[in-house]
């Protein structure tokens, strides 16, 4: 593809000298300087409306022949820059509060690009740039990344009603969009998977009515078990719902299946983390230790997992081993995103991989 115009060398006086405006950054992105473009974009006080309007303007500056490419570049840049802007604390360690049901027309004027609240707006804008028919291979990655980015922001409402209908029309064969649809519908029904970052928060009894909703959610996920690329993750998600409604044996059964079927290490680790917690509820500390150890072997620095494993080891007298695990995990910085957060944010875990594919295709 032909290189587009380089960015203006003159940044506005109000910005720091090393930062770029949206127009400058997207133009730099178009030259293949992806990292520099997203890192130098001046996101201070940058509202979503300002961001997308500037991208609209940049797209319109090209001639008719370059329009599809400029749209793809702008969509990729929007996701890439938005992702980069929302990686900081607290977005990585917290579950943001769910915007579903509270979407207003003024959202684009209210939220900054570096807030999780911007995710659904930017994701929708990005998929709106995709062609209506005859998509290219890179468009699939843009669509996947947009969905993952929306899930990162818990944008279940916009994901279900705005983002997914568009991308499913383009890529009806994409299994991950089926999963995203099930997630959006069940999460909108159940509410956030949790407000807290550790599974121990589930020790409280489920809210009245939640058990029935979880049964419905399980029913929603069941058909996805037939999809080979999803079945491991689906087992995990059903197991988690069984855990939440305190069906311990059923949840363990699902976690065992997830461990066998899932190809992603982080999913196997999460299955074992959840299984360990269930074994603790069943007063089976030795089995809990075994499960936690399996998870720990994959993800050794997760604070919540390590703390629970360490406590069980300490209680059975393995005090030095317990501390040797605990101390580095608590003091590691930056704090790794917890397994439960990774699980909750669904395809967000795959966004970096998809963004890499997009960048490769745009070069």
């Amino acid at each position, binding site marked *: 593809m032909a290189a587009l115009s380089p960015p203006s060398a003159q940044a506005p006086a109000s910005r720091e000298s090393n930062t770029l405006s949206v127009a400058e950054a997207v133009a730099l992105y178009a030259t293949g300087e992806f990292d520099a473009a997203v890192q130098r974009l001046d996101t201070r006080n940058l509202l979503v409306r300002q961001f997308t309007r500037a991208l609209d303007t940049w797209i319109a500056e090209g001639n008719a022949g370059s329009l599809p490419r400029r749209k793809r570049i702008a969509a990729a840049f929007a996701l890439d820059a938005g992702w980069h802007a929302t990686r*900081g*604390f*607290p977005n990585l*360690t*917290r579950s943001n*509060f769910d915007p579903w049901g509270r979407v207003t027309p003024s959202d684009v004027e209210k939220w900054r690009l570096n807030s999780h609240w911007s995710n659904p707006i930017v994701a929708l804008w990005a998929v709106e740039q995709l062609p209506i028919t005859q998509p290219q291979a890179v468009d699939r990655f843009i669509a996947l990344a947009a969905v993952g980015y929306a899930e990162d922001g818990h944008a279940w409402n916009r994901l279900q009603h705005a983002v997914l209908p568009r991308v499913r029309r383009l890529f009806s064969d994409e299994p991950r969009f089926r999963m995203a649809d099930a997630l959006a519908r069940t999460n909108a029904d159940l509410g956030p998977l949790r*407000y*807290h*970052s*550790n599974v*121990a*928060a589930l*020790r409280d009894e489920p809210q009245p009515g939640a058990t029935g909703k979880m049964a419905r959610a399980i029913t929603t996920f069941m058909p996805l078990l037939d999809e080979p690329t999803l079945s491991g993750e689906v087992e995990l998600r059903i197991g988690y719902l069984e855990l939440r409604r305190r069906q311990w044996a059923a949840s363990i059964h699902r976690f065992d299946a997830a461990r066998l079927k899932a190809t992603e290490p982080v999913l196997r680790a999460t299955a074992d983390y959840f299984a360990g917690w269930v074994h603790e509820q069943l*007063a089976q*500390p030795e089995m809990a230790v075994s499960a936690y150890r399996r998870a720990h072997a994959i993800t050794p620095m997760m*604070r*919540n997992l390590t*703390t*629970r494993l*360490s*406590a069980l080891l*300490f*209680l*059975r*007298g*393995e*005090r*030095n081993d*317990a*501390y*040797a695990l*605990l*101390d580095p995990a*608590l*003091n590691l*910085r*930056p*704090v790794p995103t917890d397994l439960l957060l990774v699980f909750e944010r669904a395809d967000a875990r795959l966004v970096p991989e998809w963004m890499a594919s997009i960048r490769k295709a745009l070069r």
Partner: protein
Amino acid sequence: MKVAALLITLAIASTGVVSPPRDAPGQTPQFRGRTDVVSVPVSVTRGRNPVTGLTAADFELEDNGVRQVIDAVSLEQIPIDATLLLTQFSPERDREFVRTLEGAGATRAQLRSGDRLRLVLADDGVTGRLLDVNASLAIVPEVRDLQTGVGFAGGFRLGGTDGTRGLQTYGFGVPLADALFYALAWPSGADRRHVIAAFTDGHNTIASVLDMEMLPRIAARSDAVLHAVLWAAPGEGGSSGGLWRSGPVPRIDRAWEASFRALDETVQRTGGTLQRTHNAVEALTEIITNFRSSYVLRYTPPEAPKPGWHEIKVIVKRPGSFNVRARRGYEVGSSR
């Protein structure tokens, strides 16, 4: 004479045999040369003053009701490992308390060459590190380094309400149970003594991975003596556990009370104290002074300790009124 429960332990493994810590390279155990020796730190005071000059003959010690032959009493020159546990995130009183400590340099004044000082912070997470003994908490930048991006006096606000009217959360509160476990789990070494001063309001929150109910069992396996210095207690209202409330929230108050009870039991198991004070410097001085002048009783049970909880009682036989404080017991073998 006043009887107190106490206890010891030291790497009592699941086999029921005391084994020396493996992680003390270069350190020679002074008391624990035999694998079945039990060591019990004992504090004896009259009023608020430590009682010195006692010998083995002045003590009587029972392990599960069986009187033991005390092998040694040491008024130790043993180096102290001091852990200061500070809970963060409370908008006002916590910070005021910490500032008091900072200003007085209280920590530095109480420690000697050979002692070690560890700081454990519980705010949005739990972190800890060893500090130079000559350091004081006035080294705030170093403390800040523990939490990249989180100001020591930050108190930033995340989220909104948790659905309960009148409650706003600053993050999800303080993971007190996690922090106490981290503090208690430190294997400070067989030739040292470990005291923990936890400055807290006793409120464990949902931010914690562990339940406070686990803490007494953890304390039963720790060598440390835990003192909790409280600047607030349940029933007093206001902020707690890093949760700022503009009015009473019964659900939160109940959780605070339950957490507080578990903290009390944990402290008692280690032979520590629960102190309600507004004077952090005075409290810290008293804790370390008393700990430094405490005794260490050592005995060898005639038979290998049976699995389970071993209750220990210590009495000072001398005439007079003493406050004898020691662990309440120790755990042998696996426990849940």
